[in-house]
């Protein structure tokens, strides 16, 4: 499984800020091993936004937490996974080393800003704390820097706002304050886990605009996680569609919306209400996201897939390039579509065998 992406690997490796290879995060329970993230690979370059989209339970947030080193027992990143940030292998880091990376290289914005802010300290206090711990700036200098940061995230009257507590901020302003705290660490990569889901559309538009401005100014790499196809279309350059711990389709944003290839992506796009005004009934995807508790030996979407055929339950699909454009790929037995169905299935089987290597941790 580890070298599924060998064809694109070389071309992208040079400038990638973050490069994830075969990431497997599992949770051990008494009964079973849950493979929340099962062998995903991707790169993010600076100045680029990669969107990850999927239903709840597909493993989006676990991906983000794995990169941040926030997976706690019973969760575990399996050996053989690789997360490289600026060439440094993060999976081998100790806790203090990780702490340093979180303070300087990677910032994360969570869905609920109230949970990321401490209610008993003023906002200014919390930003100054971030500056002190991560950059060693203290005293008057820190206050000035904090005002500057709040100004950067477009909070009006920042000098006064510094002295206020999180409960005195509105929802959108809290999210701005969290982003300001992240900027205090001067990150190269910002991981946004559903940062606008809890906000109203008008405020959501403000935050998206802010993130885009900040990205332009600072050449930030952004990993943006959401379940909202509309938000993905606005903010991402490239999109990975996640399902049950795996990426089922990867493409540039225009390509994905114009020319979706995987049946799951098609289903997701069809389920958006209001796009076709005169359409009477919404198309739905039957069933729920399964819990991936076995190594993938089939297509995990097969039970819900309208286009499934017999082999779908027996062969695990690999990523196949599906259009002239080099970076559009889908993991589905229907492709490559220039071959007959049997040939296509054979291709997937042979690719699987090629990647078959004894991997530690796969056996429980």
């Amino acid at each position, binding site marked *: 499984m580890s070298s599924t992406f060998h064809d694109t690997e070389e071309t992208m490796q040079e400038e990638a800020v973050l490069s994830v290879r075969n990431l497997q995060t599992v949770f051990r329970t008494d009964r079973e091993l849950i493979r929340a993230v099962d062998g995903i690979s991707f790169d993010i370059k600076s100045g680029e936004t990669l969107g990850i989209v999927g*239903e709840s339970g597909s493993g989006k947030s676990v991906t983000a937490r794995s990169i941040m080193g926030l997976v706690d027992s019973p969760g575990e990143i399996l050996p053989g996974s690789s997360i490289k940030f600026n060439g440094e292998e993060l999976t081998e880091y100790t806790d203090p080393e990780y702490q340093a990376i979180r303070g300087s290289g990677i910032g994360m914005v969570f869905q609920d800003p109230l949970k990321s802010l401490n209610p008993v300290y003023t906002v200014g206090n919390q930003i100054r704390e971030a500056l002190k711990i991560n950059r060693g700036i203290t005293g008057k200098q820190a206050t000035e820097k904090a005002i500057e940061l709040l100004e950067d995230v477009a909070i009006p*009257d920042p000098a006064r706002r510094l002295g206020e507590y999180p409960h005195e901020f509105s929802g959108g302003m809290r999210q701005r304050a969290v982003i300001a705290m992240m900027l205090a660490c001067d990150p190269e990569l910002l991981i946004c886990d559903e940062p606008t889901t809890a906000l109203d559309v008008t405020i959501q538009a403000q935050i998206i605009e802010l993130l885009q401005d900040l990205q332009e100014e600072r050449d930030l790499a952004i990993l943006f996680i959401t379940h909202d196809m*509309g*938000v*993905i279309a606005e903010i991402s350059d490239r999109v990975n569609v996640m399902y049950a711990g795996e990426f089922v389709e990867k493409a540039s944003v225009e390509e994905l919306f114009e020319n979706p290839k995987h049946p799951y992506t098609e289903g*997701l796009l069809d389920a958006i209400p209001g*796009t076709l005004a005169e359409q009477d009934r919404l198309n739905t995807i039957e069933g729920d996201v399964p819990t991936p508790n076995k190594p993938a030996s089939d297509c995990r979407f097969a039970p819900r897939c309208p286009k499934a055929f017999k082999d779908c339950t027996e062969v695990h699909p690999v990523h196949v390039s599906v259009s002239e454009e080099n970076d559009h790929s889908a993991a589905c037995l229907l492709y490559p579509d220039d071959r007959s169905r049997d040939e296509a299935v054979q291709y997937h089987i042979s690719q699987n065998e090629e990647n078959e290597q004894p991997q530690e941790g796969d056996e429980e």
Partner: protein
Amino acid sequence: MSKHSKQMASTVDQDNQTLVKVRNLKKYYGGGGRFSGPPVKAVDDVSFDIQEGETLGLVGESGSGKTTLGRTLIQLETATEGTVSFSGEDITELSGEPLKKWRKNAQIVFQDPDSSLNDRMTIGEIIREPLDAHDWKSAADRREKVQNLLSSVGLQEDHYYRYPHQFSGGQRQRIGIARALALEPDFLVLDEPVSALDASVQAKILNLLEDLQDEFGLTYLFIAHDLSVVRHICDRVAVMYLGKIMEIGETEELYTDAKNPYTASLLSAIPRPDPTSDRTRITLPGTPPSPRDPPEGCQFSTRCPAKIRPEAYDHLSNETWNAIEQFREVVRERTRIQFGIRDRLKRQLGLFSKYDDIDEAADDFFGDIEPPREVQEAIDTAIEQVKAGHPDQARDQLKQQFGGICDTKRPDMYAVSDSGRLSYCHRHADEYRGVNETLDRRSDN
């Protein structure tokens, strides 16, 4: 107000099957006692009708009063003023036994399927509870009824004995719907029924709601903040902002040709699932003001992109004007700060408090632009007033200087289309330029 009601009356005449008739409904919280502050005006003078068998959508940002309005309609909250009539009967007058009897007609489905089901009761008990409460027929009948309900919302009959934690979010929402349907109501308030659900599950619940509406001839009030969901399911839509309905009319018409500046901004803020679209988005500045201290004029005036400027300042560039508006917002914010005793004393003694420093904020807004002399003077006066500890004076002074009709006078509801769409904006009056024209012009320069 008289103009308003006349227009409402004219739309009513077209359809004789009005189920719910809401007139001048107000719901205020607090503000009763001698020492309490001004009341929170959650719903502030709202009038509309809901026809039999239709789905009326209610959209707006959080805090706009959607949920309060929905709850007041079915008497979960007592209206402060105004009437709600159901098939001609004013239910704000009801209490006691008659009210309980009437409640069978109107039910509600709540937003959060996790907190609206009692974890210690089985699904059967949960759905049966309204039947028990109203002493509906015999025990055996109730049981059969529940089993029918389970199958009509797409659940299995043997789910009767399970507990809520054994179900997924979508299934739990189905249970909530089944419970609301138990007493065979005519009217259902759906309070954000799908916003906690994933897109594909959401689609299933929406389809279910449509099926049930056909099957039982239900009338819905569909409350949501997700505008695309509302477009899909609703026949008519009301857009709410700060306790007031800004625009109400046929769904498609309203979505394709919004007349009110707030509706236009709200619609333009929806992220489109189309990365190639290059529409111009109107990004509203700031957040809605506090409902405890709403603007004196139009509720939307503090953020409106099409606000009417006083004639004397019509020539100002957008940049200057926006800076003025933002500065005014900062000053307004200042008047709302609640001070501790020490700061209040300081202020009374005329001592300079750190809260009264506003130079920096003003500098942010006006640093890069050179406002005309009269503007600069007004700003400087305001800065002095704030520094002297009188932000309220600064606020009034700025309002006098820069306030137009939008700041001082509540607009009327104007009919803006043949189908009887109503919009709440001064710009619909003949003497002002239209909304869309203004928005286009302002986005150009």
